[in-house]
């Protein structure tokens, strides 16, 4: 990659025709600061050089201006082509030259060229598919000579081992579903039924040109998955329709009822009528997400007309596809191209960027080949000139339109398989598309792989019991998988904040520089150097998602999850858990000749069932080792042990009727009856068995594996298998899910409860002094799948031995494969209440592994950092140092520091996201009120919707509402506004502290919160309050604060003689501050990656942001104090 600055002949000058004097708002930039004489010695920047040619600039402006005006006046509906006609011919020519220049630069990133064997299409095509969808098109005449009209054509997009992109059109696969065949229906009745159905369908699809809506109806022998049935199979009707959308309308007709001669009005229950067409195809062809597909030579036909930009495009019949299961060489990954990008917009002051007003000014792009650790394309596209960046291909454009089109061309040339970024689905992609609409560039949004297909923005709501409801925008890039790291983070990790900054701080352990959007416009309006600064920032934002992707192995984990569960990769992010189980269920059912009923969405009416049990927690501080007995995959084990499934459930009616032998059935604690596997093996247990066996195998292979890439695949697989196994139970309990069966889920939890109780009983019965043990064992707590036992022995090793013994003994009493395992010991253990505890975790007797906490305030964002630090430090002192008095003292010191106003302000900052404007909030909230007040002060820097609002609670008039007491931390720092220590004491730290200390200390509240350390209080005097305007500033003695009259004195007469001591104190304060100042500011230089440029970062998520500001201010003040000594 070169760093050559792309020099274009002319138009660039128009872009930089701002006055050469720097914008006053830019004063923190060195280019402005350094103007005092030294700038003349600076290397003239390319932009500066061009300033010296005013005549040329004017010329250019003249030329350029008319077009600009015309653009503005133009109606939005006018299409681009008309507009070009208005351009001067010379300009048009130049434009084309530029286009070509850009195109040749982009061309070097093209995919590798096809070998002759591929070119002649005489080779088997083997590729890893990443995306499967379908379109409606004309039936392929050569492949399907007997059909005609419209049909669904499956499209499979993928990549070959050589890195060629593939688009495979699959023909002949037809949408279908089942209904159970009414008794006594013969072949004649079926054709009659077919006619009626066709007729009804016609009524619903009047405009359809398809000759036959219901293609055919076949009688098949199948069995419903629901309930235990003694008969092997029943007749079902398989209804094949012309187009996938007709499945739903046909189902509607059959649901409502249809009049059949001789039978009268009859409604039908449909089976498998809610299966998405692409998924149906995958299940029937044995394709799983992200696997390898082979199409033999001569079985495919090169497409007559290339509809896509893919290198290999061909048509074939669905029956010719060879789907390879992901094993051996087919477990590898193809070299997909991953594009990570980020855009910057120049927002107006005081507004969050909106596509209707604010231009896109930069787009940074990084393209990485799957499996490589460095991107092979680093590119940034900028509006107006930008100085070169080492190792980065900088492309500068004069108009936003060119930037957008440049990006489109890049997408086309680079042809990424996966597009990633941070919040791209909700922000970057919709913004680009809407912006192009506003600018009237209809040819922009062709970003998919299909020629002439425009990308549109759709509003979607995603709702799932597990992830909650989220509003989102959906932009489909045909043939490319989108992977928004923000969505992935929100799904996979519970974090206090999902800003890119805090996510990268969490996972990559580095702070991201954050440039406030009000500065972005200033940088853009500066010169090519300031735009370069912005480009560096933009590139970093584009690089971080890629690094997160690598670090968290998202590609491996998601591809493996897709392979395990059989759904396309894109489903994993856009859909909930249930589709994954449904897909496995469908696949298994198909093998067993079972069909799944389409249960009407019953909503939550079906009621709920009793959940997992939690044994009462005996709160306390345990200074003897606590052994933890865990059930390994409890719920899957229960389902396997008791053969719980849809097809083994016996209806209450059948229980009476069928007269099943008692040794062949299980009655669950919740009262349901299931048959044992000798009568009917459940398919859920079978799926689970397969998943868990596969996981064991993957784990064993993982141990053997040497190659890090193979390891990554295997680790992703075992994780995916574990998650999938655990989600099966949830699927049966999801009342608004695809196939809920509360009989199963309530049975599972009831067994679970029984096991926990049983374990408790056995432990407390067996491990007693009566039974020959040294102590009586005591179960102190039990949760969903674990039981905590205090065996009473003093050493970790002894507790481990007893734990192992107990686990083996109790496991023996359970039905296989339910197994109690012993894994860890907590010592010491602080049990606060249910789901809240902390302890040191030991897995080997000689050294503890870590401190483990659950449900304790260490991450929640509603709390200020002080709470987190305090709690962590206390737990550290209590558990690791075993120093309870030390912990108490630490709390007291901290409270005293808080009351004495010695607390680092950054520890007190509370942050909340501003999701809507003030009027839309029903209740007044502190952060919303503050945002309003800040807007009145300075609209430019006030937080906008979507920002996080940091605030501190300040001392206000008596009776002020809590929401009136919020204030901007920076404002507080600058004006010495006193914070409200009582608020922090009562509303922030007291509860979490008492929770920890109550099991340990008697009178914890009195001891900690009301001791003598709470007596002295110091409140700073605000420098801007009303009363201070009337106050006269007078110097006080540094020693005793007495007023002194002479302005040149430092000490009052009383304190003379203590100079040395008092000076030492003043200078020590300065010294501390200097130390801090240096460390803080050099850290920020480190983060921004430059020594010679000023730090611009205003990331309020960064823990040192306020400290840095405060150090700067305190430093100034301390220096003034010190200077008073210079007499």
């Amino acid at each position, binding site marked *: 990659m070169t760093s050559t600055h792309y020099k274009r002949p002319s138009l660039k000058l128009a872009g930089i025709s701002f006055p050469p004097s720097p914008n006053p708002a830019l004063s923190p930039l060195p280019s402005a600061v350094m103007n005092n004489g*030294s700038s003349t010695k600076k290397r003239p920047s390319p932009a500066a050089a061009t300033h010296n040619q005013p005549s040329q600039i004017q010329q250019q402006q003249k030329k350029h201006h008319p077009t600009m005006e015309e653009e503005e006046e133009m109606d939005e509906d006018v299409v681009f082509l008309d507009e070009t006609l208005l351009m001067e011919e010379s300009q048009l020519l130049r434009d084309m030259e530029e286009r070509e220049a850009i195109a040749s630069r982009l061309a070097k990133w093209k995919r590798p060229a096809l070998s002759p064997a591929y070119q002649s299409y005489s080779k088997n095509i083997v590729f890893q598919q990443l995306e499967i969808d379908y379109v409606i098109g004309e039936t392929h005449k050569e492949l399907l000579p007997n059909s005609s009209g419209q049909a669904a054509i499956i499209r499979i997009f993928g990549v070959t081992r050589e890195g060629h992109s593939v688009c495979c059109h699959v023909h002949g696969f037809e949408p279908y579903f089942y209904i159970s065949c009414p008794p006594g229906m013969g072949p004649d009745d079926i054709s009659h039924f077919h006619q009626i159905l066709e007729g009804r369908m016609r009524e619903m699809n009047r405009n359809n040109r398809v000759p036959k809506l219901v293609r055919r109806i076949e009688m098949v022998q199948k069995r419903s998955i629901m309930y235990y049935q003694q008969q092997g199979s029943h007749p079902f009707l398989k209804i094949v329709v012309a187009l996938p959308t007709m499945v739903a309308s046909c189902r509607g007709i059959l649901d409502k009822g249809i009049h059949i001669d001789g039978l009268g009005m009859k409604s039908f229950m449909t089976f498998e009528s809610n299966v998405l067409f692409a998924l149906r195809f995958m299940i029937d062809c044995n394709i799983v997400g992200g696997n390898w597909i082979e199409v033999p030579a001569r079985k495919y036909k090169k497409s007559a007309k290339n509809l896509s930009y893919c290198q290999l495009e061909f048509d074939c019949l669905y029956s010719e596809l060879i789907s390879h299961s992901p094993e051996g060489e087919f477990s590898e990954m193809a070299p997909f191209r991953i594009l990570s990008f980020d855009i910057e917009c120049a927002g107006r002051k005081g507004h969050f960027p909106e596509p209707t007003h604010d231009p896109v000014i930069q787009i940074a792009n990084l393209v990485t080949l799957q499996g490589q650790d460095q991107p092979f394309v680093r590119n940034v596209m900028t509006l107006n000139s930008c*100085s070169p960046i080492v190792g980065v291909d900088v492309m500068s454009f004069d108009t936003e339109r060119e930037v957008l089109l440049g990006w489109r061309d890049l997408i086309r040339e680079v042809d990424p398989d996966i597009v990633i970024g941070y919040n791209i689905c909700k922000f970057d992609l919709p913004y680009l598309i809407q912006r192009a609409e506003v600018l009237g560039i209809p040819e922009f949004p062709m970003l998919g792989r299909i020629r002439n297909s425009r990308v549109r923005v759709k509003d979607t709501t995603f709702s799932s019991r597990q992830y909650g409801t989220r509003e989102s925008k959906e932009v489909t890039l045909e043939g490319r998988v989108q992977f928004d790291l923000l969505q992935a983070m929100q799904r996979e990790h519970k974090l206090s904040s999902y800003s890119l900054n805090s996510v990268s701080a969490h996972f990559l352990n580095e702070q991201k520089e954050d440039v406030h959007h009000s500065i972005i416009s200033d940088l853009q309006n500066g010169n090519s150097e300031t735009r370069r600064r912005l480009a560096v920032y933009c590139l970093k934002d584009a690089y971080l998602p890629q690094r997160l992707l690598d670090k968290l192995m998202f590609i491996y984990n998601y591809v493996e999850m897709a392979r395990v569960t059989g759904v396309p990769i894109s489903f994993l992010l856009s859909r909930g858990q249930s589709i994954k189980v449904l897909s496995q269920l469908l696949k298994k059912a198909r093998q067993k000749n079972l069909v799944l009923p389409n249960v009407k969405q019953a909503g939550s009416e079906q009621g709920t069932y009793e959940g997992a049990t939690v044994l009462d927690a005996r709160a306390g501080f345990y200074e003897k080792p606590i052994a933890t007995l865990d059930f390994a995959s409890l719920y899957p084990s229960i389902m396997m042990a008791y053969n719980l499934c849809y097809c083994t459930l016996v209806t209450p009616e059948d229980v009476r009727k069928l007269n099943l032998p008692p040794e062949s059935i299980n009655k669950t604690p919740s009262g349901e009856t299931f048959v044992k596997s000798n009568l009917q093996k459940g398919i859920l247990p079978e799926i689970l068995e397969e998943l868990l066996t596969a996981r064991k195998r993957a784990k064993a292979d993982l141990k053997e594996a040497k190659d890090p890439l193979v390891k990554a695949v295997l680790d992703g697989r075992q994780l995916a298998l574990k998650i999938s196994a655990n989600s099966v139970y949830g699927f049966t309990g999801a009342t608004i899910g695809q196939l809920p069966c509360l009989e199963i889920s309530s049975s599972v939890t009831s067994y679970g409860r029984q096991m926990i109780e049983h374990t408790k009983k056995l432990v407390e019965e067996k491990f007693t002094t009566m039974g020959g043990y040294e102590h009586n064992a005591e179960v102190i707590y039990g949760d969903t799948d674990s039981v905590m036992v205090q065996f009473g022995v003093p050493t970790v090793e002894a507790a481990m031995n007893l734990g192992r013994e107990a686990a083996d003994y109790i496991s023996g009493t359970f039905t296989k494969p339910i197994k109690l395992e012993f894994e860890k010991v907590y010592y010491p253990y602080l049990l606060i209440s249910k789901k809240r505890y902390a302890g040191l975790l030991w897995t080997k007797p000689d050294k503890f592994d870590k401190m483990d906490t659950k449900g304790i305030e260490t991450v929640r964002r509603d709390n200020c950092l002080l709470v987190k630090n305090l709690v962590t430090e206390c737990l550290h002192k209590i558990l690791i140092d075993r120093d309870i008095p030390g912990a108490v003292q630490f709390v007291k010191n901290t409270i005293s520091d808080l009351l004495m106003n010695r607390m680092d302000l950054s520890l007190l900052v509370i942050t909340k996201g501003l999701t809507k404007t003030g009027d839309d909030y029903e209740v007044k909230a502190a952060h919303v009120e503050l945002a309003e007040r800040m807007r009145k002060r300075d609209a430019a820097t006030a937080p906008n919707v979507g920002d996080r609002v940091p605030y501190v609670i300040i001392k206000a008039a008596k009776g002020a509402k809590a929401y009136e007491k919020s204030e901007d931390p920076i404002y507080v720092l600058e004006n010495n506004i006193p914070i409200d220590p009582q608020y922090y004491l009562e509303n922030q730290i007291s509860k979490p502290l008492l929770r920890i200390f109550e099991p340990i200390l008697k009178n914890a509240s009195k001891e900690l919160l009301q001791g003598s350390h709470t007596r002295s209080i110091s409140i700073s005097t605000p420098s801007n309050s009303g009363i201070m305007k009337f106050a006269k500033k007078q110097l006080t003695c540094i020693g005793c604060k007495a007023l002194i009259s002479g302005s040149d004195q430092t000490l009052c007469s009383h304190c003379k003689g203590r100079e040395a001591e008092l000076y030492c104190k003043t200078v020590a304060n300065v010294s501390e501050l200097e130390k801090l100042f240096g460390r803080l500011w050099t850290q920020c*230089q480190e983060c921004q990656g430059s020594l010679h440029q000023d730090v611009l970062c205003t990331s309020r998520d960064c823990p040192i942001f306020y400290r840095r500001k405060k150090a700067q201010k305190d430093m100034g003040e301390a220096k003034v104090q010190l200077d008073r000594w210079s007499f």
Partner: protein
Amino acid sequence: MEAMEVDYIQRKQSTYQFLDEGFKIQKEMYRGQQYSQIYFARLHLMRTLLYSLLPNWKPHLPVCTVLGLEQGKECIIVGTLYKHMKLKPTILDEYSKERSAAPLVKPHNFTHPDDHLVLEDESGRVKLRGNVLLPSVYVTGIVVALHGKETDAGDFWVEDILEAGLPEQIEPPLKSEEDKYVVFVSGLSVGSSTSNPLQFQLLVDHMTGYLGDEKELNIASQIVQVVIAGNSVEIPGGLLSGQNLASKDQSKLSEPVKELDILLTQIAAGVPLDIMPGPNDPANFALPQQPLHRCLFPGSSAYNTFKSCTNPHSFELDNIRFLGTSGQNIDDLEKYSEAKDKLEFMERTLRWRHIAPTAPNTLGCYPFTDRDPFFVERCPHVYFVGNQDSYETRIIKGSEGQVVRLICIPRFGETGIAVVLNMRNLECHALSFGTEFSS
């Protein structure tokens, strides 16, 4: 001395020129300036200098900026080095999410084999590769010229390095036949539990002529200057922060300072005395440290022989130029780079022409806006650093005949060693005081 019956011995004198102005911070204030400006000033100063050296180094090569690099084209680039260090502690560690169970062992050296260097100018950064430029030798903040070319990967392959080298030296004075001595001492640590008050008293008595026979008195009379290079007192930690002190703590705090003042008064009565602040003294933290306040020394400051100086400190005695620090610059280099001994670090700073390159990156320093006081404009004849583990000294020579005496002054409180330099020939020896008690 009146008490002495012997012949009156006249103490020798020399002309003293005070050169600390550059290290003084007077009008400068903290007005929100950042550290980029001192780097900019440094780069500017050094680049002008390095450019002037290029014609004698590699005149045939073109000079580029970082952004002007072209792949494969050989050229020279000049910029500030930045060392990327894996083990470098950062303030953000305080906030790391998982507090490590075991307390961190504080390593004294943060270098790691994976460290790499980056060259930066105003326009950008480029990663440096190659075998000639050893990351373990260099630190962040040095300005050098590099000969090399950009690789395919966008890195810069370094072929050769040009450092600024020793600066010009003023003519050494005519060889004098007269012995004149300068005594260097550091790390007195008055008030520390480990220091022995008697040792320092012996030193004072020796210098002021209260000790020894006539021969020794003669030598003592040839001492023309005493330099105390930092860490003169040790104030118990914890006394200075927080609330008002109880009266007994007040005395604990001022006691060591008073004691020091008494000792200094004895010296100042006899010999000119320069005292520099060090990291433990009641002075500011950031370099250049400002002179210790006169109010701390009500006794000794009454003498005009007493001078409270900055750290770094520079002066001339009989046209011999001295430059020295209380040791922070060298201690910091020792943490972030490697060398065979302390003197090598000292030599490097002179050849880099910058006595504190790691400031402000890892060494606290004032955020200067338009100058870099640590730039060495004239080569000293004597370069000393205080508060080192042991006494080391060596002479180094420059390509243009410069001769510099390097001195590591050990901590007196721990070693009982002061260093004596003879200005006649720049020879140096240790002055050791031992006190043994039979207990």
